[in-house]
């Protein structure tokens, strides 16, 4: 007894053109979907946050004005070199990697959560431990408050926004390093116009 044919169309007969066209249309339909699905799987995990605290490109930042621990200064990108100037002291070059590290970390930081609470003091934002202003167009000012109890996240506030935002506490680590650079500059003599303490 002859076994039944396995193929729908006998192999020695050409495919009818309608079936061929249908098959081609099906392939054309499925190809983009397959490509999207496969490329998504092959792609690396996203390195940029979905909801960045500050949406900016680090290389666009011309300057960073910082104040904290009763001191203030300006980091400025001059001809590819980062410098630091404080009132009453001459401007001096600083470790560019340190400033770029701060900006790189900030650019990669996403909001963990955001909320409105009039009690800013409860989050260390009534008198922030420090502020920085990014020299962008327009400028972006961020106030740095306290960390949450397990020290995992940091409360910050952008400009005069009523919202309190929570970001990873790695920002505080980077901030401390930036402030460390400021600490290295000798204190300006009195009446030199240095600002009052932030906190």
């Amino acid at each position: 007894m002859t076994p039944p044919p396995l193929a729908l169309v006998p192999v020695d007969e050409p495919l009818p053109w309608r079936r061929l066209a249908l098959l081609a249309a099906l392939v054309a339909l499925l190809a983009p979907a397959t490509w999207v699905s496969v490329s998504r799987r092959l792609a690396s995990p996203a390195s940029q946050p979905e909801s960045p605290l500050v949406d900016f490109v680090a290389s666009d930042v011309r300057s960073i004005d910082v104040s904290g621990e009763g001191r203030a200064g300006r980091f400025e990108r001059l001809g590819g070199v980062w410098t630091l100037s404080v009132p009453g002291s001459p401007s001096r070059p600083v470790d560019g990697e340190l400033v770029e590290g701060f900006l790189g970390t900030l650019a990669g930081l996403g909001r963990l959560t955001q909320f409105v609470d009039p009690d800013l003091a409860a989050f260390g934002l009534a008198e922030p431990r420090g502020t920085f202003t990014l020299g962008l167009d327009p400028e972006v000012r961020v106030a740095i408050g306290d960390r949450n109890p397990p020290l995992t996240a940091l409360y910050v506030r952008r400009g005069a926004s009523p919202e309190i935002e929570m970001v990873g506490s790695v920002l505080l680590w980077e901030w401390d390093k930036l402030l460390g650079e400021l600490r290295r500059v000798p204190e300006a003599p009195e009446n030199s116009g240095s600002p009052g303490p932030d906190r």
Partner: protein
Amino acid sequence: MRMTHRWLLAAACVLLSSGIAAADGEGEYVLDSSNWQKAEKLLPEPVLKRVKAGDYQMKVVPVDNAKFKENFTAKYWAASEANEGKYDIDPATCGLKDKATGKVPGHVFGKPFPKIDPKDPLAGCKVAWDFYLANQLGEGIGATFTLNGIDRNGEFRRIKMWLHSNAFMGRTEPAKENPENLRGTTLSHAMEPADAEGVNILGQQINDWTSQDNIWAYVPQTRRSRRVNAASRSDPVAGLDIFSDDLNCYAGKVEYYKWKLTGESEVLAPIVGPSAFTMKPTGSPTRFEVPIPYLKGGYETPGSKGAPWQITENLVFVPRPVWILEGESTDPYYNFGKVIMYVDKDMNRIYWKNVHNRAGEYFYTAMCGYHWSKTEDGTFGATTPNMVMGVNDKTDRAALGGRYSSQFVERAFSPDYFSLRALSRLSD
């Protein structure tokens, strides 16, 4: 006459006891919530916070720096000094380069960079290399130990396993053969509980500047060995708050991270000892045994106060000067973001590391405790990771790893022992 004897005996006792007190207790103290301020600059902040809250009590034992350095052999220090100027760093990869050949060296005994200039932009890589090669001094090492998952209620999971490792690059004597051009290799086998039993893992680090770790896992249920991504070193081990990358506080190739030296400080270093233990000879001329006191955890100490995962016996904290190092992987599959490590300036041990996740949230601190061991004649020695206390500060849960009470040192492992064939045969 009898009275005179009694007086003499009493006087001798007083003298002896005062002498012991001075020798044993000088400068020693127990750090706890009543005097936490003493460690204000000596512990990473999340750890100090727990001391302040009453979670940890630490026995602080000051040591003489010169004496502490004797935990390494005199040969090691001499070789380190002689290495000055011989090695360099490939700036693109952080790879170690032999200045004479421009290539990666096959064997380096002693620190490749005995002097670190903190202003050197490659100082972070250099500290990392001093650390990496010191890990390998013991050549072949093995121990059976447990991983204990612990929360506020005590132990919730226990895994028993053994880990054997063989080093090629930083060993004391060069290996007779290294057919696969490896820096090091490891083999582990899970013994308990039943759901983990028979899971074996083989790891290899190739001696080049660019390749990732080769890792294979054998799962007995499928009777297959599968290649695993190097980034899995940052996956929790069996769902516990501990990671493969906690071995020595960093277990990857130096080139896997971007390293940056960001500062210097002093920390309280967790040490078992603090003097080197003696390697006891065995029937084999290449094998030694090292008996080590067990590090009891709070969860198994009746009446212990504080966190159940703190170590209550046989661990001391020694003030040590450290470099503060940042490490970050560019591998997008690696779960850790920025890792901050505290590395002994002289002994090159990473004692503490604070780990951020990829979102920049700090979440985890590992405390890495070590011991040193030396042969009776003092010509051969090793430093070994003894325990890890991994604490997840986000979930207030922890894991203890290691705490073995004996280890072996094998100076002549056969390279065949660390092979894919061995990986599957272990569970046959």
